[in-house]
C-alpha cells in the first residue's frame, strides 16, 4: 500500500514539481549503477535534496532506495515519521545512543542484504551557508564491511536556496544534480572520507 501511495505521489506531485517548478537539471545520469545495491553520497542543504535524488529513479525502483535519516529528527512525532516513511521510504538510524544492544550499522547491513540502495548525507545536517561542512564517519563503517559497494558521489546545487532550513515555501530557483563516477574508497577512515568529499567537491564546477 505504502509503495503504491509513494509511486502515485512521485508520479502526480514530485515529477511535475521538479520539471515545471524547480526546473531540475540533471548531469551525469549515466553514472548511476544499473544494479542495486549502491550508496549515493551527497552534500546536504535542503529537504529538497532527498526528494530530487529519489526523483532520479524510475518509479518501480523507488521501493529499493532508502534515504538514511536521523531518528532524532524524523521520528520525533507520529506525523513526521509516517509521512517520511510513506513518501520517502526513509531508513531511520538512531545516532544518539549507539549502544552495544542496538548497533545502527545492523539496519544498514540488513538493507544492503535485501539489495536495497542507500542515500547518505555524511554532513549529518543541512548546511545553512551552501558550503559543505565536515563529514561524519558513519559511512566508513559500512565501507569497511562492504568494500565492494559502489559509492556514487553527487553534488546538489541551489537546493538550499530554493528551500533553506527553516522555510516551508520553496522558491523556484533552478536546481542542479551532478552525478559523478562511482568510487570504491580505500585507505583508513580519514582517507576514505577525504576521497568521497573531494569527489563531490570536484563535481561542483563541472557540467
Amino acid at each position, binding site marked *: 500500500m505504502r509503495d503504491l501511495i509513494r509511486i502515485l505521489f512521485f508520479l502526480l506531485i514530485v515529477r511535475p514539481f521538479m520539471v515545471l517548478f524547480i*526546473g531540475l537539471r540533471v548531469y551525469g545520469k549515466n553514472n548511476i549503477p544499473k544494479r542495486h545495491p549502491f550508496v549515493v553520497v551527497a552534500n546536504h542543504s535542503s529537504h529538497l535534496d532527498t526528494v530530487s535524488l529519489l526523483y532520479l529513479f524510475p518509479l518501480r525502483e523507488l521501493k529499493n532506495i532508502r534515504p538514511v535519516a536521523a531518528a532524532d529528527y524524523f521520528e520525533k512525532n507520529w506525523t513526521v515519521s509516517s509521512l517520511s516513511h510513506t513518501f520517502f521510504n526513509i531508513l531511520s538510524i538512531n545516532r544518539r545512543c549507539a549502544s552495544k544492544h542496538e548497533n545502527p550499522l545492523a539496519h544498514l547491513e540488513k538493507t544492503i542484504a535485501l539489495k536495497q540502495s542507500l542515500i547518505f548525507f555524511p554532513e549529518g545536517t543541512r548546511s545553512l551557508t551552501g558550503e559543505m561542512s565536515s563529514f561524519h564517519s558513519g559511512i566508513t563503517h559500512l565501507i569497511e564491511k562492504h568494500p565492494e559497494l559502489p559509492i556514487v558521489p553527487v553534488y546538489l546545487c541551489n537546493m538550499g536556496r530554493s528551500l533553506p532550513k527553516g522555510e516551508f515555501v520553496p522558491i*523556484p*530557483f533552478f536546481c542542479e544534480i551532478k552525478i559523478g563516477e562511482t568510487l570504491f574508497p580505500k585507505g583508513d577512515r580519514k582517507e576514505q572520507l577525504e576521497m568521497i568529499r573531494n569527489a563531490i567537491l570536484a563535481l561542483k564546477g563541472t557540467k
Partner: protein
Amino acid sequence: MSLLEWFEGLSAARKAATLIVGLLGFASLIVFFLKLFNPQKNWDELTNRLKSWWVMVGVFFIVLALNRMISIIFFAFLSFWALKEYVTILDTRRADHRALFWSFLTIPIQYYWIGTQWYGMFIIFIPVYMFLFLPMRLVIAKETAGFLASSSKIHWGLMAFVFGLSHLAYLLVMPAVPGSSATGHTLLLFLVILTEMNDIFQFLWGKTLGKRKILPTVSPKKTWEGFIGGVVTTTIVSLFLRFLTPFDVPATMLIAFVIAVSGFCGDVVMSAIKRDAGVKDFGDLIPGHGGMLDRVDSLCYTAPLFFHIVRYFYYG
C-alpha cells in the same frame, strides 16, 4: 494562381502563420544546401537554432489558435520561466526568501487582471502596489545589509519579466481596433514576429558585414553594421505584415523602427545583466539559443512600448 487565391482567402492570423512557416521552410532549405555544398564546416549551431525555431513557432501558433485562456496561461508561464532564470543567476540573500516568494505570486495575480480585462489594475499593480509592498516585506525580514540591492533587483525583475512581458497577453484581450479589421490578436502577431525577425536580421547582418563594435564591453559580438542593417531590414519587412495592423505606410515604418531599436535595447540590457552576474546564457532550455530569457529579452522592451503606442494612437 489558385495558391495565391487560397492565401488571399485566409484570415489575417492564418496568413501570418503561413508566411512564417514558409520562411522557416525556406531557411531550412538553404541550410540543407549549405550543408550539401560545404559539409566539412560545422553547421551544428545553425541546425540547432533552426530546429528550436520550428518548435517555438509551432508552440506559439498552436497556443494562440487554441483559446484566449490557454494563451494567457502560456504567457504567464513565459513570465514565470523568465523570472526564474533571472533570480537564479542573481546573488540573493537568505533574508530575501519571502519577498521572492511574493514576487513569484504576482505572476498569477497580474495575469488574472488581464483575464478579467481590468486595465487600471493591470497597469498599476506592479509599479505601485508591489513597489510599495516588497521593500516592506524585506524590512520584516530584519536584514539591512544589502537591503536596497535586494529590493531593487527583485523589483527590476518584476518590471521586466512580469509587468513588461504581460503586455503581450494584454494585447490578446484588446478588442478590435475601431474602424479596422485588426484585433489585439493580430497586433500581437505583428509585434512578436517583427521583434523576433529583428533579432535574426541584426544577427545575420552582424555575421556577414559586422566590423565596428557597438558596445564592446557589454556585447562583444554586436556591431554597428548588424544594428543598422537590422533596423533598416525590419522597417522594410514590416510593410509585408501591414495586413495585421490598422497602420498606414508611414506609421507602420515608424512603429517598426521603434520595435527594431527597442528590441536591440532589450537585448543589450539583458546582456549587461548576464555580464554582471558572470554567466554566458540564462539557461539551457532552448538548444542553440540558451535560456528562455535569451529569446524573450527583446520582447521585454518592445512589448510595453508597442502596446502603449497602439493604445494611445489607435484605441483613442
